């Protein structure tokens, strides 16, 4: 019997016996009334009137057309953009800048080419003692299935492997929230499906809150507890669609297609052609 036959709650119960202690999940309370950028042709409002609450341990996917401000939104959650009107709180604490309680995976893997896979994963752990650090690195490399590549350099890895190392690096700081910006966009369809399964497994094992940005509607329906549909100019939330399908989800089932259709309709309704 494979793990995916278990319900999430059962998996989580089993996980509590594993080496890593269960972490505190982060609850996000997001209000962004306006985010502007200084464009070439004057100031540009990129995000407007966004308000969203993410439950601890929830898996939220954000979909929306190109340029509607998804990356900007995620960067605000990461603390990389701090100039905006509004307030973003993680567990009642206002986010003022980057912190280890939020792990970030960018669209590109952004691994440091001069460090081995192991040292890349350990990058944020310089304050930990050396046995603690190597324990964590081993744990997260096991989790993404790359233990045997720990001594390799990033230029020897495939795109999917690099992205998994980036996920391990983001998880190594034991974040309460994992933020992913189109992490699988550059992968081929087969690898992408495999990575999605792996991400679900990691999410279930690590019990973090996840916010994932994607272009891929199927990916969102497959992964999310809730789908946030964004529309452009200025970027704002159009609709929140819950996905009440049990996992593992069957991509070809009628319910799955139904939700996919609904998300697509929602997106198309706000696209000016």
């Amino acid at each position, binding site marked *: 019997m*494979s793990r995916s036959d278990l319900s999430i709650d059962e998996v989580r119960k089993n996980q509590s016996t594993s080496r890593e202690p269960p972490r505190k999940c982060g609850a996000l309370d997001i209000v962004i009334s306006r985010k502007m950028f200084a464009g070439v042709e004057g100031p540009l409002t990129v995000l407007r009137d966004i308000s969203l609450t993410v439950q601890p341990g929830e898996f939220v996917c954000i979909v929306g057309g190109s340029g509607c401000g998804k990356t900007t939104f995620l960067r605000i959650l990461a603390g990389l953009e701090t100039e905006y009107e509004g307030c973003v709180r993680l567990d009642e604490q206002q986010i003022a800048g980057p912190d280890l309680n939020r792990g970030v995976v960018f669209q590109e893997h952004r691994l440091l080419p001069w460090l081995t896979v192991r040292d890349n994963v350990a990058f944020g752990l310089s304050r930990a003692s050396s046995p603690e650090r190597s324990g964590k690195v081993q744990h997260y490399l096991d989790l993404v299935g790359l233990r045997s590549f720990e001594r390799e350099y990033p230029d020897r890895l495939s795109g999917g492997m690099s992205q998994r190392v980036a996920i391990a690096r983001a998880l190594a700081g034991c974040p309460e929230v994992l933020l992913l910006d189109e992490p699988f966009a550059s992968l081929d369809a087969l690898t992408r499906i495999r990575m999605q399964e792996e991400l679900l497994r990691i999410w279930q094992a690590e019990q973090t809150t996840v916010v994932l940005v994607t272009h891929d509607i199927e990916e969102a329906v497959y992964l999310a507890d809730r789908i946030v549909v964004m529309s452009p100019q200025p970027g704002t939330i159009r609709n929140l669609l819950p996905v009440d399908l049990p996992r593992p989800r069957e991509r070809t089932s009628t319910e799955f297609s139904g939700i996919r259709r609904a998300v697509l309709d929602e997106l198309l309704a706000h696209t000016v052609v």
Partner: protein
Amino acid sequence: MSTAEQNHRLPWKAAAAPAPKSRVRMKKWRFHLSDRLLGWIIPLGILVVWEILARLAVLPPNWLPAPTVIARTIYEMGATGDLWKHVGVTITRVAVGFLVGATAGTLLGGLTGYFSVARKLFDPLLQSLRSVPSIAWVPLFLLWLGIQESSKIALISLGALFPVYLNLSVAMRHVDPKLLEVGKLYRLSSFEMVRRIIFPAVLPQYIVGLRSGLGLAWMFVVAAELLGASSGIGYLMIDGQMTGRAAIILGSVLLFAICGKTTDWMMNAAGTRLLGHRAR
């Protein structure tokens, strides 16, 4: 677990198997070796022809002595200990001048690369100074510092400074901002940022700068010693010219070549070591 384990059995694992890799490396190595042998054919041929022509007195011996005569001259000077004194003096000058110049270049390059204000302040000045042929400074250095060591060191330092400065400054300005953002994400202090991201990122180009700085240090030591010195390989050359002994001049050229090549090789080896897997 089963899905995860299956995921690891992927095609790229097979590609990384050791056997075919080492075979490829072997082939490459043999190819390089024969390349190197090819490179020796012409110089060795020239030496042999030169030797024969000199022996047959086709070439006047006071004009172009045979290679064996040059070798013997060097050997005899080495036996009396004179040679080592001159070589030592020249190497010391290059070492001190290079250290001073590279240090100044590193400081200026680092400063202008890190702070854009410093770049706006210093870069135009340094760029225009760079376009002055450095030999043009000689009279001024002689006036300020006299004919002693310090004017020579100053000239060599100036030669080494610019390539180090330029390479470091440019490399620092072009560190991938996406990697800098990773450092920001992990809340690195400015010092940690330099140590853990900027320095490793600029290292390859910095080493290139150091290597060309060292090359220029050797060029400038020749200039400095030809312009007035009582010791050093350059002095040997002048001495050979004064006393009309071509063997000494040619021997000195050979010594310069050997010394320059050796230090460059050492620098290269150190750089390769520092760069680790990135050196290829």
